[in-house]
């Protein structure tokens, strides 16, 4: 009997799968890790404000090939994740108002925050990395932004959206990579991700508030 239908065909057609998995993976490694390090470095403002932060930045800048690292480990993954992410956002036909389940809202918010984060990042990187690169100038610019209530609010929105996108993304990452399979593990990890979102958001907001109350240089 002809078993044509059963034959394993050559595996040339999985590029979409591979890209999607890459899209998921790089969001955590290296981008997620970078975000954590970034926040940790920023939290140096709690030690002795401006000075400790500047000292740390200047130290970081002495590392070799810093620009190459920035491009390969940070810029390219983020640009890929962002651009392909727009396509993923486009693919969904959201129905959170019809199916008002918690996970469906989370799914919808993940896409909304994706767009917010994208705009925020362009702004953030342009203002604090591309247009100026002198540490003292950068921190002055940031402090200036955070002293203005409007830009402060925008900044908070951008940062909280980023943290949501990160925390919820971590949860779906665990499903996408087959780590959380059963109901129980999914439930437990959803709670963990929720708590993570709250903590990391508070942490980020605290940093921003701290900078906003530092005297302008």
């Amino acid at each position, binding site marked *: *009997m002809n*078993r044509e*239908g*059963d*034959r*394993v*065909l*050559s*595996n040339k*057609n*999985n590029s*979409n*799968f*591979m890209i*999607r*998995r890459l899209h998921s993976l790089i969001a955590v490694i290296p981008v997620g890790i970078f975000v954590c390090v970034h926040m940790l470095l920023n939290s140096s403002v709690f030690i002795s404000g401006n000075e400790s932060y500047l000292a740390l930045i200047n130290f970081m800048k002495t590392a070799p090939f810093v620009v190459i690292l920035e491009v390969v480990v940070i810029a390219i993954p983020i640009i890929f994740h962002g651009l392909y992410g727009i396509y*993923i956002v*486009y*693919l*969904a*036909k*959201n*129905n959170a108002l*019809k*199916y008002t*389940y918690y*996970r*469906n809202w*989370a*799914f*919808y918010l*993940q896409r909304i925050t994706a767009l917010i984060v994208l705009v925020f990042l362009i702004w953030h990187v342009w203002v604090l990395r591309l247009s100026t690169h002198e540490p003292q100038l950068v921190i002055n610019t940031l402090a200036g932004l955070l002293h203005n209530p409007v830009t402060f609010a925008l900044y908070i929105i951008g940062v909280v959206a980023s943290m949501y996108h990160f925390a919820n993304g971590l*949860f*779906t990452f665990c*499903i*996408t*990579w*087959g*780590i*959380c*399979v*059963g*109901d129980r593990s*999914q439930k437990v990890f959803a709670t963990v991700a929720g708590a993570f979102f709250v903590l990391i958001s508070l942490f980020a907001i605290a940093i921003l508030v701290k900078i906003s109350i530092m005297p302008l240089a």
Partner: protein
Amino acid sequence: MVNPQFIHLKVKRRSNPTAAPYWEEFKVPYQPNMNVVSVLMEIRKNPINAKGEKVDPVVWECNCLEEVCGACTMLINGVPRQSCSALTDKLLEQYGENNVITLEPLTKFPVIRDLMIDRQLMFDNLKKVKAWVPVDGSWAIGRGPRLADKVHQWAYPISRCMTCGCCMEACPNVNSKSKFIGPAAVAQVRLFNAHPIGAMHKDMRLEQLVKKGGIQECGNAQNCKRVCPKNINLTAHLAAMNRQTNGYGFRQFLMGDK
């Protein structure tokens, strides 16, 4: 206890696949213990709309009326479900005695007429993922393989999937823009990959799951599990298949087709 005079229906109708849709209302004398199917059956016995005009009876699909064939799926007050198990008393209890029960065809499939839709897409997806055990033939060649009761416990519910389309309807990633085959077909792969003979041909199905429109299109909105009339744990099955396809993809990447 609800006891209205009429059951008030509002049906989204369409006289053929290319005609424009329109809404029509019906008032059917109330009887206790009705379901949406029996209300529609009353309409065809006396096809008169709420305005008292003679109209064509509403066309819909139904067959077993026991919620095992999957035919009579439609949107009832916006929720995808079988109209045979949509008891009117319960609907009126839930939405209020004066509720106008709305009936619409599922939106993710082509409409044939009124509430009747064409779900061929779902059967085609079963072809795509090769949802079968490739036995040598149907002849008697002795006892089949043993299967642990424990595996039966979780696999049997997947085999109760009646291809009704509720999960497809609720999934935000199943739409005209995406090619996602949907949760039902993915879960079937887990079923056949669990069967001792089916497992010998795991890769044949996994290969299909990583093609365009495959499992990677799942966005974890998890509506599928919420609307499944058979309570199939689709989200767990999707996650398990994520694990299997990742392993498969990794193996393929490192070792080629071996």
